[in-house]
């Protein structure tokens, strides 16, 4: 006999159909997800080893705790959830479909006792004429009824929003759609990061997995700028980007401003403003040099890191600078630079020079000379996050379905009404899939209307 074999298959099926498994999986996923929020994900090994011992590190690595949400056991849990979802739906959907497509048309005595709401109404006339009255009444006030005649009695059935019973399945299906979108994204998309210096362009990106991807076009950074609030907090990071095909700017894709929250998309690849920094080329600093004694002033221009000779035998190199010192120096604004000044025959002296608003500040250093930073031409690079994800639309489709499904499942109710018409009386019965108390109220209202009408 193959009962044990069949038994095992059945057991497996039952296991995957069980709602207890769903609860277990949902709570289990909630619990294990906590791990990855406590242990930082995806850091280099050295960083972990600073805080935990080598044995612990090896153990955690074995368990996949450093990339937990992509570890085999976490993915396995997600597969179980999906399987559970599919099996449960396969098992239950036919039953629900039957309720929708093959409703009970005849309310017999046994069925009547199973309904929680029933009312008897006395009416004058023969069954056939009462039936016509009720049919037009229900058609107007509720929904068009189906009439069945059994042994001289008329049975009416009417229903509203039957399809909202499918809401739960729409929600479950939507979760699978979201998973499919995520899988498409992980196989057919990539995420990367590029730095483009002002005036420079790139045509390839290095993805997070370390692969170089050819974009098939190039992106040039025309300009990068950063603006600050009066408080010194950053207000805006902006790159002007131009897309190039075969070295030529693409019409409509020139000098496009890209700021945080406003990316640029071209051919399915999207560029997001993410970071910035001074470009390797460095800035040019325009510095006015005034002799304290003679008052003679000259203008010099120094490149970052360059050592330039000053009048009188001193030397100056600019280490770094910024167009706006507010984030670094409280109560000051305008340009500022960290310089290294070497007086004739002396030791190098590091100090900060500011704009001409701060003469007394600038006069504190520089020996015979007073150095003032007139302006600077700062060159930046812009740091852009680059992403291509063809699965994203599928994910949004799943999300939209989920919202629709949740609304169907939570806020709509399948309402059913039965009426059994005999000579001189009608028996009504009703049921609703949600909010029975509310349904009873509207049911009674309906009965009152019938009595008046």
């Amino acid at each position, binding site marked *: 006999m193959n009962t044990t074999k069949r038994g095992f298959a059945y057991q497996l099926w039952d296991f995957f159909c069980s*709602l*207890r498994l*769903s*609860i277990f999986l*949902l*709570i289990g*996923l*909630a619990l294990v*997800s*906590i791990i*990855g*929020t*406590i242990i*930082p*994900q995806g850091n280099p090994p050295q960083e972990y080893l600073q805080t935990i011992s080598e044995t612990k590190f090896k153990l955690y690595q074995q368990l996949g705790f450093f990339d937990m*949400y992509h570890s085999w056991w976490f993915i396995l849990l997600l597969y179980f959830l999906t399987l559970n979802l599919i099996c449960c739906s396969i098992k239950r959907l036919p039953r629900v479909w039957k309720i929708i497509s093959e409703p009970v048309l005849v309310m017999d005595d046994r069925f009547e006792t199973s309904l929680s709401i029933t009312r008897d109404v006395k009416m004058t006339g023969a069954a056939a004429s009462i039936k016509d009255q009720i049919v037009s009444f229900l058609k107007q006030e509720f929904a068009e009824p189906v009439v069945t005649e059994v042994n001289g009695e008329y049975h009416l059935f009417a229903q509203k929003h039957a399809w909202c019973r499918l809401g739960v399945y729409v929600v479950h299906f939507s979760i699978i759609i979201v998973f499919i979108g*995520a899988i498409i994204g992980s196989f057919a998309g990539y*995420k990367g990061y590029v730095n483009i210096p002002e005036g420079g362009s790139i045509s390839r990106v290095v993805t997070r997995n370390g692969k170089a991807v050819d974009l098939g076009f190039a992106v040039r950074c025309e300009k990068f700028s950063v603006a600050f*609030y009066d*408080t010194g*907090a*950053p*207000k*805006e*990071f902006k790159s002007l980007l131009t897309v190039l095909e075969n070295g030529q700017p693409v019409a409509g894709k020139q000098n496009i401003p890209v*700021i*945080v*929250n406003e*990316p640029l998309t071209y051919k399915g690849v*999207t560029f*997001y*403003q*993410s970071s910035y920094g001074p470009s390797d080329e460095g800035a040019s600093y325009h510095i006015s040099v005034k002799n304290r004694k003679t008052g003679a002033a000259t203008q010099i221009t120094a490149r970052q890191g360059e050592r330039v000779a000053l009048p009188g035998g001193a030397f100056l190199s600019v280490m770094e600078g910024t167009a706006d010192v507010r984030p670094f120096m409280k109560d000051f604004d305008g340009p500022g630079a960290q310089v290294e000044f070497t007086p004739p025959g002396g030791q190098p002296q590091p100090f900060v020079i500011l704009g001409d608003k701060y003469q007394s500040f600038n006069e504190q250093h520089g020996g015979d000379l007073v150095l003032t930073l007139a302006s600077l031409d700062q060159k930046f690079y812009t740091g852009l*996050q*680059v*992403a291509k*994800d063809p699965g*994203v639309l599928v*994910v*949004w489709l799943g*999300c939209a379905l*989920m*919202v629709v499904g*949740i*609304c169907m499942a*939570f806020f709509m109710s399948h309402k059913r009404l039965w009426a059994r018409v005999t000579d001189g009386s009608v028996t009504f019965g009703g049921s609703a899939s949600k909010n029975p108390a509310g349904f009873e109220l509207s049911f009674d209202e309906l009965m009152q209307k019938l009595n008046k009408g």
Partner: protein
Amino acid sequence: MSSSMFFNVAMVTYLVSTCIFFAFLASRSKAVGLAGTYAALFGFLVETAAIGLRWKESYDQGHGHAPLSNLFESVVFFSWTIILIFLIMDFKYKYRAVGAFVVPFALFGLAWAQLSLDSGIEPLVPALQSSWLMYHVITCFLGYAAFAVACGISIMYLIRDKMEQNGGSAAAGGMLSMFPAVKVLDDLNYKAIMIGFPLLSLGIITGAAWANYAWGTYWSWDPKETWSLIVWFVYAAFLHARITRGWVGRRAAILSVIGFAATIFCYLGVNLFLSGLHSYGK
């Protein structure tokens, strides 16, 4: 008049409302219960005015933005949404005793914000300059608020359930007699979560949409995202528990309390104890 004064008035009104609700439990007078609801409603209107005023104040400072951008503003908004959801449920189902266990949440929130959080109005950093901020924060907080209401109801359930098991006579008199029956509490708990779950789902979806729009990844398993998913799992478990035999009642109430604890951790704990992209509370 500054928004801060209005916030203080709202705070005191919620305190009064809480006291009235407890007086209602003790006195069992319908009129007292109604007074508690009216007090909460008055506090709600004052808090609404305060939030509106703060919004205007940010424009007066030259960088107008919706008051949803730092910890102070979010805690204030949280207390506002809790009272909103409470008032909706009170209006619909009229179980006044629930107020004694829900209004205190809003009171705690507002008092914490007013007494110890930095209430300065700051301009928006670039990452928050997006209309997605509004959609995301509003849906999330309405969801959180519904869970707060559900948690209050579940605590009532657990108290009443415990008392009834220790001998039904305790339930006959005293404060407990104003508690709705356990079956009603169970149902109210479910109804509150039926409001919260869709809103949380929308909150997660709008958050994902924003992340995708701003950073190019709709999901990056950052601790805040993960915790919102944890909360979502817990309430999904709750919804399925209800249709499974043996899981209704006490266990569902416990799940609802756990769900709210996870919600609070998601909202505050993540910023205090873990690091990530979300910037509130830093």
